[in-house]
Structures are given as C-alpha cells and as structure tokens.
C-alpha cells in the first residue's frame, strides 16, 4: 500500500465530516491543478477553534488530510490557524507520497481561509457596533 496506515484510517473513518449548522466561519480552497475542493466550518470560542467540520471533494489523501487537519487545529488560537502550514497536516497523516502533497496544501489553504473569514466577520461586527 502506498499510503500510510494513518492515512487509510482517516479515509476509512473520517473525523468531523459533514456540514455544520450556523458556523462562525467558513473557508474553502480549490486546488487549481487537481480540482480538489476542501471546505471547513469553524465554531470559535474565546479566540480558539472550539469545533471544526469539513466537506471535501477529491482523492483519498485529500479526504484523509481534511480529517486529520480537524484534529490538528482543534483548540488552536486564531493566530496559529492563520499561519497553518501543510507540513503539520502531512505529519499527522504519517507522510504523503510526493505526488499527493497537494492534499495537505489544499486543506491548509482552506483552513487559513476559514481563519480569515473569522477575522472578516469580527471586523464586520465591530463596524456594526460603531455604526
């Protein structure tokens, strides 16, 4: 098997998969080359990730990377989420074959986008207060 046991386990039993009703933020990324789409929903409490769910269209590694990433980012503060890199996700999967590294990249991009969405919504709220 060219994939690690951890990757297979995440693919077989994805954690935190599916829609989240009324999330605090949503982030999505599409890999322009392979067409994979990852979307993450966040619930934020006191500046940290309190709950995260995902929906991903793509190959097995992309689905597994999404699942692993939900465990990586649980409890993370927004600052750390904003600079999330793919290496941590790849490590959580026990590594990826070189031609599947895009799986961790698209997932980290989507999570960074979700962090930006939190900031954007917070900014909107502040503006709402000022108005």
């Amino acid at each position: 098997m060219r994939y690690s046991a951890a990757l297979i386990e995440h693919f077989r039993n994805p954690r935190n998969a599916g829609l989240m009703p009324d999330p605090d933020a949503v982030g999505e990324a599409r890999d322009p080359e392979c067409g994979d789409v990852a979307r993450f929903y966040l619930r934020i409490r006191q500046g940290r990730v309190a709950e995260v769910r995902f929906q991903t269209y793509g190959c097995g590694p992309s689905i597994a990377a999404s699942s692993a990433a939900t465990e990586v980012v649980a409890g993370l503060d927004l600052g750390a989420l904003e600079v999330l890199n793919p290496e941590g996700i790849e490590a959580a999967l026990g590594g990826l074959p070189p031609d599947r590294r895009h799986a961790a990249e698209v997932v980290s991009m989507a999570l960074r986008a979700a962090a930006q969405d939190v900031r954007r919504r917070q900014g909107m709220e502040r503006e709402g207060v000022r108005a």
Partner: protein
Amino acid sequence: MKRRVYLDHNASTPVHPEVVAAMLPYFSERFGNPSSVHGFGREAREGLDIARDQVARVLGASKDEIVFTSGGTESDNFAIKGVAAARGRGHVITSRIEHHAVLRTCQLLEKQGFDVTYLAVDGHGLVDPDDVRRAIRPNTILISIMHANSEVGTIQPAAAIGRVAREAQVPLHLDAVQTFGKLPIDLDAIGVDLLSFSGHKIYGPKGVAGLYVRKGTRMIAVQHGGEHERRRRAGTENVAGIVGLGKAVELRERDMAGEATRLTALRDRLWTGVQARVPGVRLNGHPTERLPGTCNMSFRHVESESVVLGLDLSGIAVSAGSACTSGNVEPSYVLVAMGVPVDWAMGAVRCSLGHSITAADIDYVIECVVPLVAKLRELSPVSV
C-alpha cells in the same frame, strides 16, 4: 481471509495454470537459443513454431504473417513506424481515443513531417466509417483504429472501416489488444492488414505479444540487429513467453464463446445493480457494442481515485477513469473525446471482468459500491 475481487482484467490477467505448465520447460530443459542449429536450439525453435501455428490458426492467417514482439505497445509502434518508414512521407488516419502507443507514435510521425488526422468519436466512443472515408487523402498511407477501447470497451465498426480502407487501397492497422482472444476476429471479412495482439490480456504472460502482417504489406523493420522473425524484428525471441502466448490463445479458442456470454451477463448485472441503487451514475461506452467484461461507470460529484481506494480497502480492484499524476488530475482523454462532461469524467471507474468472477462477486461489489459512493458524496462539498 478477506474477500478479494479482481475487476481489472483490461489491465492484466492472471496466467492460466495450463499456460504456466506449457512455459516451464522452456526456462530449463528447452532453454536453447532458437537461432542455434544444434539440438537445444531446435527444441526452442520447435516451441516457437507451435506457438506461431496456434496464433495463426485462431486468426486464420499463415504462419509467416505472425511477428512476435515484447508487448502491445511494441506491436503498435512497429505497425505504424514500419509502414511510415517504408513510405517515407504521407498521411495517417487514427482516432482520438486510441491507446497512447498509437497516439504518441502518431505525434512522433507528425514531428517527422507526416500528417495525421485524429478522428472524433461519438458519445458512445464510436468512429464513423464515413468520417474515415472523408479523411482519406491521395497520400494516406495508413488507417490505425483500435478494435475495442480499453477504457470504455466500445467495439468499433471494424468491418465498415475495413471496407473504406479497401476501397481506397489504404492499409488498415487494427489494435486488437483488447479483443484478441475475447471476440472472434475474421481478418479477411474485416480487411485487416496489420493487427496488434497481446498475451497478458488473455491469461498469458506479460512481455509477449505480436503483430499480424498481411503478406504484401509495405513495411520495414524498426528494430535491427538480427535475422529473427523473418528479418522483421531483430532480437532473440522470448521463447517461454511466446510458448505461453500460444497456449493462452489455444485455451481462449476453446473458452471464448461461453466466456463472452457469461461475462456479458455479469457485466450487465453489475450495471443494473449499481444503477438501481446509486443515483447520479452513468454508463460510459456503447450500451451493447461493448467488450463482454467491461463496465465503465461515472459517479457524479465523486472523485474516481477515492472510489478506487475505498473499494481497494474492501478487497476490490478497479481502475480510475481519471489520472492524478504529480498532483495534476486529468479526466480521461477517452471520456473527454466522447463528450462526457468533466464533472462526470472525474468520477469514472472502470470495472473489467474475467474468468474468476462470479455472480456472488458482482453482488459483493454492488454491496460495497452503494455505501461507499453515498459516504463520499456526504463528504463532498460539490454535491450540496
């Protein structure tokens, strides 16, 4: 032990035990070089002769029209380059859904100054013989069409294309790697001048194949360095492999008709079962004019590699219709040429059945496919 179901027979097949038994003596006792004049050489030569007879008989050809090669890819290369080299310049007609062995070779010819027409196909993957007729030019030197497509299984109207070729006096190369030993092939009725065939698609060994070359076909060798294969293909023959190919052909001659009927029923059982229980699925390829064991299905909003991986975890081997290389996913060029929309093409999965497959296997596959596709769709943001 976990159940294992191999549905990738268009990629390769297990070597039949009788084929293995026929090959074994040619690794040890009859190991001589068939070009040697001594007894050891003669024994090896005898093995080649028997195999050539077996292949020639099933094709209705004469022995000296059979050239053994190292694989279907070499056979296709030899057919096209051999004719092109003999003519020096000219125009070749092929289709957009050929195997890369044909397409890449034709692209090379273009770089060398030849003209190539790549014919479009219809939604079922069929080449229109009238398109072939319209594409013929005064300088057309070859028509190269695959008998049946390896991905979707569509069988071309070879006899109608052959008539067009004959009328125009243009040689016809039929890439029959997927049909040889699976369907009857009448060389004269079709009007074939060159025919590629292979061993490992029909329960023979890998690394051995052949090209039928009709007497009088203008072509020259593309591999030099010896007098082998009547000076058409230099290199010591893969004797054990060729003996195995001959035996495989003999066995297919015996089993082919019954197997075709059985596999057609199983193929249709698979499609009917999946179609009844999975929404958003389509069959790729011709509904009836299709290889007995081939069922290519597209699951919309699901990426084919995740289906392949999911089924693999249940012990089921199928192949993906889209190919991901270096992080770049391309939908199958065959499906794209057939006009299959990209979001369907990305979810294409090919199941190709063979002699070990039973109705119980097919039912098991259906039982695994239904929840897998449902789960992947649940995970997918593009289906909601």
